[in-house]
């Protein structure tokens, strides 16, 4: 099935194999993500959701099984820079101005200076920071920095966006605002998103599907389909949003009860 954006088959990840601290982070994981889909990975800490994301991004190699991204090996996809990555820690480089941070992946791809500058301007408009290209990251608030990190990840128009608790360090208000922004950007760019979170409401608000993981070893416990359609800020007060949140919450409870 070559149409999938991400195809994870029978993946197992063991850390410290053979040592006393051997930990099976993930075991027997299968998951197919369609192009343009927004999928959230949620689960208690230690369930391997960040590991899962890093396997898709080929920042880790699976111990067994295979990971394909757009029909090629995860390694090849990384080499082709098919995905953009956003971490909880914005990870902007202090020594680069905001525009230069966004242009970094383009620089590494050998884009001309003029093209880079045009693109970073577009990206700054997209994340609603048009006047901040000349600032240094430390002059920006946490939420603004995270928006720059998203702009950087999207600058080369990757077909896949991997996000590891990107809003985890933000306050509630900024967080909700960023969620709205992310959905808007997702609509505008049509990119596939794999999003790790430990927030139930965040997962329900953002995704098409919520993948609920159980810990030790990390497995897919269940997948909750979220049928909310197009979201707006009103969605947060929509009874269907509460139903979706409840469904995710119950799946997580079932994980903790070990059923």
């Amino acid at each position, binding site marked *: 099935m070559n149409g999938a954006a991400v195809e994870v088959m029978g993946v197992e990840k063991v850390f410290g194999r053979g040592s006393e601290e051997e930990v099976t982070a993930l075991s027997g994981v299968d998951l197919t993500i369609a192009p343009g889909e927004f999928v959230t990975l949620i689960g208690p800490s230690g369930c391997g959701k960040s590991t899962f994301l*890093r396997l898709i*991004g080929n*920042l880790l190699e699976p111990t067994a099984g295979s990971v394909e991204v757009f029909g090629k090996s995860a390694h090849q996809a*990384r*080499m*082709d*820079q098919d*995905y*953009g*990555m956003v*971490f*909880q*820690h914005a*990870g902007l*480089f*202090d*020594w*680069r*101005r905001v525009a230069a941070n966004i242009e*970094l*992946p383009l620089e*590494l791809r050998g884009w001309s200076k003029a093209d880079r500058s045009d693109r970073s301007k577009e990206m700054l408009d997209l994340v609603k920071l048009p*006047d901040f290209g000349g*600032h*240094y990251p*430390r*002059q*920006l*608030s946490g939420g*603004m920095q995270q928006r720059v990190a998203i702009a950087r990840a999207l600058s080369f128009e990757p077909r896949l966006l*991997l996000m590891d608790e990107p809003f985890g360090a933000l306050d509630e208000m900024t967080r909700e605002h960023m969620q709205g922004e992310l959905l808007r950007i997702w609509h505008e760019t049509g990119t596939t998103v794999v999003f790790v979170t430990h927030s139930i409401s965040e997962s329900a608000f953002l995704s098409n599907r919520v993948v609920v993981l159980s810990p030790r070893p990390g497995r897919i416990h269940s997948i909750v389909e979220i049928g909310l359609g197009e979201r707006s800020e009103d969605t947060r007060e929509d009874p269907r949003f509460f139903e979706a949140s409840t469904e995710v919450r119950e799946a997580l409870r079932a994980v903790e009860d070990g059923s």
Partner: protein
Amino acid sequence: MNAGRLRVLMPPLVTGALFIGAWEGGVRVLGIREFLLPRPTSIWAQLTSQWPTLRHAGWETGRIAVSGLVVGIIAGVLLAFFTTRFRTVNEGITPLAVAVNATPIVALAPIFNAWFGITGTLSNQAVVVAVVFFPVFINTAKGLTEVHPDEIELMHSYAAGEWTILREVRIPNALPFFANALRLVAPLSVIAAIVAEYFGGPQDRIGNVITSNAGFARYDAAWAAIAVASAVGLALFATALLLERVSMPWRLVGGESESTTKP
């Protein structure tokens, strides 16, 4: 802007003037004998009358300090790069360097005289190099390796190789660490040079001017030489600060609260 600069400069200038005034007045009023603590005006008189000797001594000692600084910095930085590139070397060398760094290296001056000759400047320079080398090496190596893991993962997600990561992440990350080391070793190099001169080397340097004048109870002249030494140390420290500011403009900008309001 000028008013702002004046406001920053005023407190230390006033404090300094008060300190010198209190020194001068205290020595006069309390009748402290000049060989115990000469008055600033006596030191100044020596500074002007002995100026050719002192200027020459300050210049020569400064040259020893600066040449030792340059060699020590280059060696420290090179070894830092080397150990970052080859992790096993790092594991062997770094604990050793930390241990050596904790030993008072100026104590080696008499031994360096035996190794590099007591009459030339080489042994003095060697003391400066040894004093400068370790802080530069340890700090730079730390800056090259202590990179946030997300930043390395980010670079891997761009399929960047080790050289690109070194250029784009490790080196800029190491700059503040290196600058800290520089601020530390710049004045330290003058101290090292002078202490080394106490034990050997040519006789027309600050260290020897201090010891010979003190030996003849010409304490005001010894103090004048100390003043020259401190001026050389200050000049090197100021150069280090200037380099730091020029090389890292992003460290000069204010934090979030001041600058999110656009100009």
